[in-house]
């Protein structure tokens, strides 16, 4: 019988892997040419990709940028009449229209500024890597550029002042290192206000920029929240927090429904400040898509959270209402809701009510998105282990604190892919408004084809629209992946 005992006296050193399994060659061997069954599809796929790309490249790079009509393009291609290359003249001539619809030319700076401010408002919400000061620099820069663009002596002076301020703060931000700044703050240096303040103001500025009218309207609308806040603040200790909340909401609603117009009119007659009013029917193009998309996205998340919580609630009526709402909205196509918004809703309104068509569409798309959002978030809530609720309860956190601090941050994190999918879906669904006669990019493409010069042009317009949508949707998708990485707290 042989001796079973064995004792290793030294640990083997690590060796490098064989050369054929690392580097480009190793990668290609493992993934592309791993045996005949693997090599043949690889070669076929390469041929297919080459074929598609070579066709696309020759289609895209065609010298038709300055053409005036489809016929001119055909002359450039040659007499064969084949439509084998792109006719980009239509984009050169109509891109402004595709972006702004029939928004008055003199006022087009307004949606551009609103769009720029949108990013300034979004950055502190979406990212935590940019410093407070850089955010204010961005805001000042956008406003400064807008003032410069408007021109006039006042505009130039204001613009230069704003840009100067931006440059000054930006220079200081760059010239002091992070550690120095932290030390300054620790020793009591004044910090700039939190840029989230601007993010909170932006929802009131943006509609004013887009639709124009008196500046007192958005201020009055914002005051509604102030009214609600103070009503809650002073009544909650007296009548309890739930009753206080209800009274606060009612107070705010009364303010919005009955007092806002009067207040705004009064203030306007005292201090008239305003922009020229732009009718909703002049809205169009990507401006319209982004307006609807951004509002629906921004509103559907909070409404969806409330609905998802309501659906899990122990309160029977709340639960029934939420389930009913979600199931009804999910059971009805968006087109139907849009038709209701555009035609039926007027029947139920008292005659003479002017209920803006875009506002109606906004409400419908938001409700639609919220129902889906609620279900996505419910999925996240269901994925949380029971222990998280129990641990929060056992520490004495009440329902709302537990939701806000423990449950929602985790449930939302789990649901990020679903939430962003819904966002992207909603954004793309905004093209459906072309069916009820709003001129979104698709609706405009039909209008452009009705022009005799561009009759018969298809791919170029759709390609351009697809590209624009792709830019938005792809950014959202990449952002969600970034966010998932940032929020990952396990050690994988």
């Amino acid at each position, binding site marked *: 019988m042989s001796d079973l005992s064995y004792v290793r006296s030294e640990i083997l050193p690590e060796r490098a892997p064989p050369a054929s399994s690392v580097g480009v060659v190793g990668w290609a061997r493992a993934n592309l040419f791993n045996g005949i069954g693997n090599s043949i599809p690889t070669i076929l796929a390469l041929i297919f990709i080459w074929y598609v790309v070579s066709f696309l490249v020759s289609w895209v790079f065609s010298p038709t940028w300055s053409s005036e009509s489809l016929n001119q393009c055909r002359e450039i291609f040659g007499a064969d009449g084949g439509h084998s290359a792109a006719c980009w003249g239509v984009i050169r001539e109509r891109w402004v229209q595709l972006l702004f619809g029939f928004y008055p030319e003199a006022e087009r700076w307004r949606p551009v500024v609103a769009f720029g401010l949108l990013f300034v408002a979004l950055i502190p919400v979406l990212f935590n890597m940019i410093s407070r000061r850089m955010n204010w620099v961005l805001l000042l820069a956008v406003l400064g550029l807008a003032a410069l663009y408007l021109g006039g002596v006042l505009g130039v002076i204001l613009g230069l002042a704003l840009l100067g301020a931006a440059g000054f703060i930006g220079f200081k931000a760059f010239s002091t290192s992070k550690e120095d700044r932290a030390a300054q703050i620790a020793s009591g240096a004044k910090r700039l206000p939190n840029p989230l303040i601007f993010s909170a103001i932006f929802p009131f500025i943006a509609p004013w920029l887009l639709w124009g009218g008196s500046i007192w309207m958005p201020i009055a609308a914002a005051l509604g929240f102030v009214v609600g806040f103070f009503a809650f603040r002073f009544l909650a200790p007296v009548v309890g927090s739930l009753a206080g909340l209800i009274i606060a909401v009612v107070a705010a609603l009364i303010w919005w429904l009955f007092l806002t117009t009067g207040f705004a009119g009064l203030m306007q007659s005292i201090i008239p400040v305003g922009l020229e009013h732009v009718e909703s029917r002049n809205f169009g193009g990507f401006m319209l898509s982004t307006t609807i998309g951004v509002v629906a996205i921004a509103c559907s998340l909070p409404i969806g959270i409330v609905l998802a919580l309501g659906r899990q609630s122990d309160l029977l009526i709340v639960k029934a209402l939420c389930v009913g709402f979600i199931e009804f909205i999910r059971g009805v196509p968006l087109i139907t809701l849009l038709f209701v918004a555009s035609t039926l809703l007027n029947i139920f309104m008292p005659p003479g009510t002017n209920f803006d068509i875009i506002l109606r569409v906004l409400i419908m798309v938001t409700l639609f998105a919220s129902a889906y959002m609620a279900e996505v978030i419910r999925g996240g809530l269901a994925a949380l*282990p029971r*222990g*998280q609720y*129990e*641990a929060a*309860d*056992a*520490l*004495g*956190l*009440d329902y709302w*604190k537990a939701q806000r*601090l*423990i449950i929602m*941050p*985790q449930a939302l*994190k789990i649901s990020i892919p679903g939430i962003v999918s819904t966002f992207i879906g909603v954004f793309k669904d905004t093209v459906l408004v072309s069916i009820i006669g709003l001129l979104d990019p698709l609706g405009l493409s039909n209008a452009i084809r009705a022009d005799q010069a561009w009759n018969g042009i298809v791919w170029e317009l759709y390609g351009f629209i697809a590209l624009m949508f792709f830019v938005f949707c792809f950014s959202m998708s990449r952002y969600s992946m970034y966010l998932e990485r940032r*929020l990952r*707290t*396990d*050690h994988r």
Partner: protein
Amino acid sequence: MSSITLESHADRSKMEVSDEVAIEIRGMNKWYGSFHVLRDIDLTVYQGERIVIAGPSGSGKSTLIRCINRLEEHQEGKIIVDGTELTSDLKNVDKVRSEVGMVFQHFNLFPHLTILENCTLAPIWVRKTPRKEAEETAMHFLEKVKIPEQAHKYPGMLSGGQQQRVAIARSLCMMPRIMLFDEPTSALDPEMIKEVLETMVELAEEGMTMLCVTHEMGFAKEVANRVIFMDAGQIVEQNEPNEFFNNPQNERTKLFLSQIL
């Protein structure tokens, strides 16, 4: 079953039981649907007592201690914790919960918060302690459970034993008068069971009132001043540990002890 031996012998002389009542349970009954889980439970726990609750699985041990901070509702009888009766009044429930710490089998740390944030969350939001003070307290307790250097990591980066010690520290940060342990070592590797038990022994030596559902009979012998044996939703036998292990009276207890020792 329990092969874990504690290194340090707990110093029983430090563990004094006062005659002040911490928890009083009278005629408590609970049903899950039509299943009668807890039957006529009567139990009085005095301040400073260390009670180990043992019993076969499904005997209602966990349910019993989960009733004490109302993670489970009882349908009949009275539970009075530190002078506050547990009823459907949420104010009382929250008051009791902030006085009673609980440690779970699966730790239930909040994975999206760092260790320090896990420990400061409840003091800040429930007790309204200023952040700085809460952080100091948290670091004090993290040192006590011997993991201050992990304070800025996330729970997912810690071993099971470390996580359970953090969970204990998190409960302690609320300065509870009573601690409930729901099988705190059942999900741990043998190596880690010891570190958690030692933390618990230390806690006992400081006079904490503890109710502990566990299968660690070594811990029961070392620390408990009373062992309760439950079967089929009832308290079948209770006694001080020496008597309980060496001279069990009830047939069911004898059978159970013969199986696990």
